[in-house]
Each structure stands twice: as structure tokens, then as C-alpha cells.
């Protein structure tokens, strides 16, 4: 036993573990292929170890030849693996070359037992080497050619690759270079070129890199993987090497000084080193990573700080803009955006973006596979991960996810949750550096995203509260105006009344004057004064009309309710409405049975309700006609009834007018809200008053549904008579 055989032993174990691990972790052509190479390398690499435990040369030769049964297939399977990595397995040239290589492998496999291949094994202290037969050189050349053929192709693909794939290939290239070097050292040793350090250290490094690279490649950057592996190897070389060196070189000296139990010294040393080893390893690793990840740490700190400040921002728009800005800038992304759940929980809408994206959509449905995935997994979604999974087996879900991520130009999607509710998600483009997203990155982003969710919720709540407060204030104002209006309008009316008296009397006085003795100038003056007074009088009358209108709206139910038929209400309404609108321009359809039950209501008030509704519908239909200019369009109002709610008659009044825009919908019943342009009048009080009449005066309900460019339907429920 020496360091050569110990490293060999470690390499064998690692190779075999790795080869099983990758297939257990994921069964794909890629992992199976790698597993084969790794397993065969593992057997081949047992050479120093196996020889160190065999007793005779003959026994060593037998074992070595057995190992070479596996070794003979290493170039072939390496070759296969390379072409799977390069995704060029279907190339006919490659297929031919592959077959050719397989033939060689079989040839060497068959020749293993022959002295033409391996003559024997010698201990070429402190390591073992093969005594090569003529075929051994051929095998070494075959080995070299396989590597030499595949590697330039891989390098070419590497140089043309981008970001993530580039990193992936980097791992593979470096790892296999190490394995190739290990093999080369092994071959060279057979031709008496000394093996200055155990070549299996390279094999160990190879396995460690792959362990990171293949199975967890997205978690670590190559430099980190390499650094960690190197630190590991150095630390454990020291831990294991020093005691053995002690035993090997100073064994005699120790036995003289300590006596029979001299071997205790290296053992104790080993125990001490083995205990300190992990600490040393961790310490060195942290130091190294602090240096390597300085940049990453910098932006992670920035993001952490930013996430703390976020909850203080109360303006939602400002907030999400800030989030994408901070993320894109500190991580140096080519693009970042954020999608926020809409108020109605149906859509995620693009809220803000930093830098121009290639995103095709600005809305993602909350039932889409992307949202489902995020809700289910509550984790960051990485585009490369999807691509890799699809590489193994494509499912419809993965295909959907892929196309959705493409449509929003996402490299990574980070969800923002409040409890189980996906409030928003952040879309990150590629890093400008082309580096991959590390696990550290993703966890920082996740923290940020969750902080963002809180901040968004906070801002939303604040905005809603503000809006509600405004509404309450508005409602209060309205109520105050309502009660004030009554008194105010009387006051104003009294002023008009007085004015009317003054002007009326003055006009009368002038009228009665005998102007026959007046000069023409005086007559002219009188005429002018009279004209002015007439104008004053006219304005007073007009003002009086305004006040009258105002009083109408503040009036409380001034008469009792009685049984009344819908027909009667509509007749009365149409009689009134015909003076305002051209009934010949539209159709009004009464689509309800003649024997329909009466409602309990006030004719004048209900007349006003239907007057307003028909008048509004008319305007909406005229607007549709003017704006959409549809061929053969004709306005149509349909009035029909239902008996849904017992004791109530449900009356629908449906028009095919322009409809209500979504943003206006909530404000429909708000006083003074009007969409009618000022030239076409509209106080914005119509629906407000209607609602008051129906709800407060009649104990009924009124609701509305509308689709812009299609029409509006009002549904009124009035208590039925008996």
C-alpha cells in the first residue's frame, strides 16, 4: 500500500459511485452514456490498487488483464458520450467512426489475454506499470486518437455556444482533459516515463468535477467546482499523505526512538489531521469563494438591502419599476420584468420591464402551465432546466412551459408568494456576462421576490385603502351636497325670485313711461336698458330651471307606492321620451307576457327610471352607429321579465349599444360620472338617481352588465304586488 494505491482506491470508489449516481438521479441517454464511461474508467483506474494487494506477479497479471477488459471499451464509450454531448449522434460519419471504434474495442477486448497486448506487470517503485506488448502501443494510440478526434469538435461547439451551454461544455472539456491526462500518464509509465504523482488524483478530480457538473451543474460555476475540487484534493493529500510519508520515510527513525509501537505516531498524526481536515477544507473553500464570488456577493448584498427598503414604497407602479431596475442593474441582466396578478385574479399582467425584451405577450393566464408550475413547485423556474428535462423526455407540459418561457423571454422565472397566493412573478433574462444562475443567485432572488410580494401587497393595500378613502370622502361630499342642495336651491331660488321681481317691475316701469317727449338719445338709452333687463329676466328664468332640476334629484319620495303594471310605466315613459329621442330610429321590443304581475311602485319615479335608461340606451346605440359604422346596424332595446326572486319581478332592459368600457364600469352609478360628451349633455346624475329611486324608494335592486361594443343590460328587481 502506498499513496498511489490509496488514490487509486479512492478513484475507483468515486467513479463507481458517480456512475451509479448519475443514472439513479436521472435516466437519460446522456446520463447512461456517461455512467458507462465513468464505470469503465473506474475499473481501469483500479490498476495500482489491485496490483498493490496481489501477492505474486502472475496474480497481478491476471487481474491487470481483467481490468483491461474494461479499459478496452473506454475509448469507444468515451467517444459515444462525446457525440451525445455534441448532439451529433445521427451524423453518418460519426456512426461510421463509431462502428470502427467499436471494432477496435472488441479487438482489444479479445486480445486482453494475449501477451501481445500485456506482457506483464512490474513494480516500478513506488508505482506499478504494465509491461507493454506490441498491441499496447496500438491501444494507447487508439485511446489518443479517440480523444483527439472528439475534443476539437467539442471545442468548436464550445466556442460557438452561449451562456449556459457554454458552461456545461466547459465542465465536460476540463473533466475529460484530466481523465485523458491520467490515461496518458498511465501509458507513459509503461514506456518508462516516470509517473511523478499518482495519476489517479486526476481521475478523482475528474469525478468531482463531473459530480458537480453533470448532476448539479446549474448550482455551481465551473471555477468554484474546480476550486473546491482542488482544495479538497490538496487538503486530503496532506491529511493522508503526511502520515504515510512519515511512516514511509521516517519509519525506521521512529522505531528507533519510540520502539515497537512507532506506527502509533503516524496514526495519531493522521487522526489529528483527519479531524482538522474538514475545518481546513471549509476555511480554505470559504476564503477562495469569497474571492471568486466577490461580484456575486456584491449584488446579492445590494439585492438584500433593496429588498428591505421595498416595503416602504407605497406606490405600486413605482415599486415594481424599482424592483426590476434594481435586479437588472445590480445583477447586470440584459432584461428583467415583473408580472402582477390582476385585481380579478384571472391574469398576470406585465407590470414593469427593464430594458427592451423580446417578450411576445404582456399577459399570462392564471390557468396557464407556467402559473401551475410555479404554484405547485413554489420555486424558481429555470429555462435551461426545462430544456434539459426535455432532452431526457419531452412531455406536453414541458413543451408548454418552454414556449411560455420563450414568450416572455425568460431565462429564469422567480415567483412571489403571499401564503399560497402567487401574487407576481419576476422574469429574468440572461446575465450580460453569460454566466449561469447559481443556486445562491436563485435563493437570493427568491428572498427578494418574497419580500417583493409583501411590498406589492402592501402597496396594493395602501392604494386600495386610499381609493376607498377617496370614495368615502366623495360619498360623504355627495351626501352633504345632497342635504345642502335642498336648502341651497331654495336660497338660490329666492334670489332668482327677487331678481325676477326687480327686473319685472323695472321693465314694467319703463314700459309705462311716456317717451313721446324724449330725445332720440334718451329713447335709445331706454331701449338699451330694456334689452338688458329682458336678458336678465331670461337668465333668471333659465337659472330657475336649473334649480328646479336640482330639486328634483334631492326630492324624497313624495308620493305613495301603488300597484302598477310595467306596460303603464313604459307607456308613460315612451310618451315622455319621444320628445327627446327619435323613436323611429330604434326598435323597442316588449318581450314579456301581457298578464304579467303588477309591481309596487311610483309611476312618476319609475317613469323617470325608464326614461333615463331608454335615453341612455339611445345615446349608446347612436354612439355605436357613429363610431363602429356597422353595415345594417339598427338600435334595439328589448325589455323582458323573469320571476327569479320570489316576491320580486325581474325586469331586464337590454340594448345593443356601444356598451361600457371596463374602466368605466365601476363608476356607472357614481354621481356626476358621465361618458357623454358635454355637447350631448348628461349631468352624470341619471344612474345615480335611478339607483336611489329603485333601492331606497322601492326596496328593489338594480344591476348592470355590459360588454364594450356589444351592448348593455340593466336588470331591475321590483317588489311584486301581492
Amino acid at each position, binding site marked *: 500500500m502506498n499513496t498511489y494505491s490509496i488514490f487509486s482506491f479512492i478513484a475507483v470508489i468515486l467513479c463507481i459511485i458517480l456512475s451509479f449516481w448519475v443514472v439513479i438521479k436521472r435516466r437519460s441517454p446522456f446520463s447512461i452514456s456517461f455512467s458507462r464511461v465513468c464505470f469503465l474508467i473506474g475499473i481501469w483506474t483500479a490498476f495500482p490498487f489491485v496490483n498493490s494487494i496481489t501477492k505474486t506477479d502472475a496474480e497481478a497479471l491476471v487481474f491487470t488483464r481483467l481490468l483491461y477488459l474494461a479499459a478496452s471499451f473506454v475509448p469507444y464509450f468515451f467517444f459515444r458520450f462525446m457525440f451525445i454531448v455534441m448532439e451529433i449522434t445521427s451524423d453518418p460519419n460519426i456512426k461510421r467512426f463509431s462502428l470502427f471504434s467499436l471494432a477496435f474495442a472488441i479487438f482489444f477486448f479479445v486480445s486482453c489475454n494475449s501477451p501481445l497486448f500485456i506482457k506483464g506487470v512490474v513494480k516500478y517503485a513506488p508505482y506499478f506499470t504494465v509491461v507493454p506488448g506490441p498491441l499496447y502501443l496500438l491501444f494507447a494510440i487508439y485511446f489518443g486518437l479517440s480523444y483527439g478526434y472528439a475534443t476539437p469538435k467539442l471545442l468548436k461547439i464550445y466556442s460557438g455556444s452561449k451562456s449556459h451551454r457554454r458552461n456545461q461544455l466547459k465542465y465536460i472539456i476540463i473533466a475529460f482533459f484530466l481523465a485523458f491526462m491520467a490515461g496518458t500518464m498511465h501509458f507513459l509509465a509503461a514506456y518508462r516515463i516516470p509517473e511523478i504523482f499518482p495519476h489517479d488524483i486526476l481521475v478523482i478530480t475528474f469525478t468531482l468535477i463531473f459530480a458537480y457538473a453533470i448532476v448539479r451543474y446549474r448550482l455551481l460555476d465551473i471555477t468554484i467546482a474546480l476550486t473546491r475540487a482542488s482544495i479538497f484534493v490538496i487538503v486530503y493529500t496532506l491529511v493522508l499523505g503526511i502520515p504515510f510519508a512519515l511512516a514511509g520515510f521516517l519509519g525506521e527513525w521512529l522505531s528507533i526512538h519510540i520502539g515497537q509501537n512507532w506506527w502509533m505516531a503516524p496514526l495519531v498524526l493522521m487522526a489529528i489531521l483527519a479531524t482538522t481536515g474538514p475545518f481546513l477544507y471549509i476555511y480554505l473553500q470559504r476564503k477562495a469563494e469569497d474571492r471568486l464570488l466577490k461580484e456575486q456577493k456584491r449584488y446579492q448584498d445590494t439585492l438584500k438591502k433593496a429588498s428591505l427598503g421595498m416595503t416602504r414604497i407605497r406606490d405600486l407602479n413605482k415599486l415594481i419599476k424599482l424592483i426590476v431596475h434594481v435586479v437588472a442593474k445590480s445583477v447586470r441582466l440584459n432584461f428583467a420584468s415583473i408580472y402582477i396578478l390582476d385585481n380579478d385574479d384571472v391574469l398576470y399582467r406585465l407590470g414593469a420591464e427593464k430594458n427592451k425584451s423580446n417578450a411576445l405577450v404582456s399577459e399570462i393566464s392564471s390557468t396557464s402551465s407556467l402559473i401551475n408550475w410555479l404554484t405547485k413547485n413554489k420555486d424558481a423556474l429555470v429555462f435551461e432546466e426545462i430544456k434539459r428535462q426535455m432532452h431526457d423526455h419531452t412531455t406536453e407540459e414541458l413543451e408548454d412551459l418552454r414556449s411560455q418561457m420563450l414568450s416572455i423571454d425568460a431565462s429564469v422565472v422567480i415567483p412571489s408568494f403571499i401564503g399560497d397566493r402567487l401574487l407576481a412573478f419576476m422574469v429574468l433574462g440572461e446575465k450580460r456576462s453569460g454566466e449561469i444562475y447559481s443556486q445562491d443567485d436563485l435563493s437570493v432572488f427568491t428572498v427578494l421576490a418574497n419580500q417583493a410580494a409583501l411590498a406589492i401587497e402592501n402597496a396594493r393595500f395602501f392604494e386600495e385603502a386610499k381609493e376607498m378613502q377617496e370614495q368615502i370622502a366623495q360619498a360623504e361630499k355627495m351626501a352633504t351636497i345632497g342635504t345642502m342642495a335642498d336648502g341651497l*336651491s*331654495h336660497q338660490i*331660488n*329666492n334670489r*332668482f*325670485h*327677487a*331678481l*325676477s*321681481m*326687480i327686473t*319685472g*317691475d*323695472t321693465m*314694467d*316701469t319703463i314700459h*309705462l313711461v311716456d317717451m313721446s317727449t324724449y330725445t332720440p338719445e334718451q329713447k335709445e338709452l331706454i331701449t338699451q336698458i330694456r334689452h338688458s333687463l329682458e336678458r336678465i*329676466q331670461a337668465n*333668471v*328664468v333659465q*337659472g*330657475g330651471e336649473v334649480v*328646479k332640476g336640482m*330639486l*328634483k334629484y334631492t326630492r324624497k319620495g*313624495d*308620493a305613495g307606492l301603488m300597484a302598477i303594471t310595467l306596460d303603464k310605466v313604459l307607456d308613460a315613459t315612451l310618451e315622455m321620451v319621444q320628445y327627446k329621442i327619435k323613436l323611429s330610429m330604434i326598435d323597442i321590443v316588449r318581450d314579456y307576457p301581457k298578464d304579467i304581475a303588477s309591481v309596487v311602485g311610483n309611476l312618476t319615479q319609475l317613469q323617470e327610471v325608464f326614461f333615463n335608461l331608454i335615453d341612455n340606451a339611445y345615446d349608446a346605440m347612436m354612439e355605436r352607429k357613429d363610431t363602429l359604422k356597422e353595415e345594417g346596424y339598427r338600435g334595439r332595446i328589448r325589455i323582458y321579465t323573469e320571476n327569479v326572486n320570489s316576491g320580486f319581478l325581474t325586469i331586464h332592459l337590454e340594448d345593443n349599444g356601444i356598451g361600457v368600457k371596463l374602466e368605466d364600469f365601476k363608476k356607472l352609478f357614481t354621481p356626476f360620472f358621465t361618458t357623454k360628451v358635454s355637447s350631448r349633455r348628461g349631468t352624470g346624475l341619471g344612474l345615480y338617481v335611478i339607483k336611489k329611486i329603485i333601492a331606497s324608494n322601492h326596496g328593489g335592486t338594480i344591476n348592470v352588465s355590459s360588454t364594450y361594443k356589444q351592448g348593455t343590460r340593466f336588470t331591475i328587481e321590483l317588489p311584486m304586488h301581492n
Partner: protein
Amino acid sequence: MPVRLLIVDDEDDVREFAASFFRKRKIEVVTASSGEEAVKIVVSQEPKIVLLDIKMDGIDGIETLKRIKELNKQIKVIMITGRDDEEAKQKTKDLGAYGYINKPLELDELEKMVMKLLEK
């Protein structure tokens, strides 16, 4: 004996100009600024016609109408009101008001009504 017209309104301007208007027509006008005053004048001066504002401080037009009618059923009372109030209209009609005019009134309209009354 000239016709006596009583104008009841708590607005000085209204009283002044309405009075002026009718005086030009050889009608004797007296004015009252409140319901109480109006009732006193009805007792002391027995006007033939009363123009009565419905809404006033103190006793309102309806109450004043009631008292006037209690004193003298012959007096013709024209109610002047600020709004189109069916209820008040009905009530004053029941109490025996002769007519009902909305504010702001035009004097021509009032003149017509008064002249019509005088012709009777």
C-alpha cells in the same frame, strides 16, 4: 274703494318691487314680512287678495293660509312656492288657496292671475 292687495314675503326686495308693480296699476298694496304680520294685517285692513310665500321663517305660508282662511274665507290667497311640490300644492288647495305660482315668477304671469281675480 280701491282693491287692497297684501304681499307676504320675507324678502325685502320682493316686497318692494312686487308692491311697486301693482301700485302702478292703481292697486293698494300692503306688505308683510312674516306670517304673523300678515295675519294682523288681514284682521286690521281686510285685503281682498293675498300673495303668500310658502316658505318663511316663523309660521310658514301654509299655516298663515290656514289662519287667514279661518279669519276670512272670502280672501283670495295666491300661494308662491319655491318648488314643484305636489303635496304642498294639494294641501294649500284643500285649505282653500286660490292659485299656486312657482318661483321665480314672472310678473306678467302674476299680473294675469291678479287681473283675472279682479275681473270677477
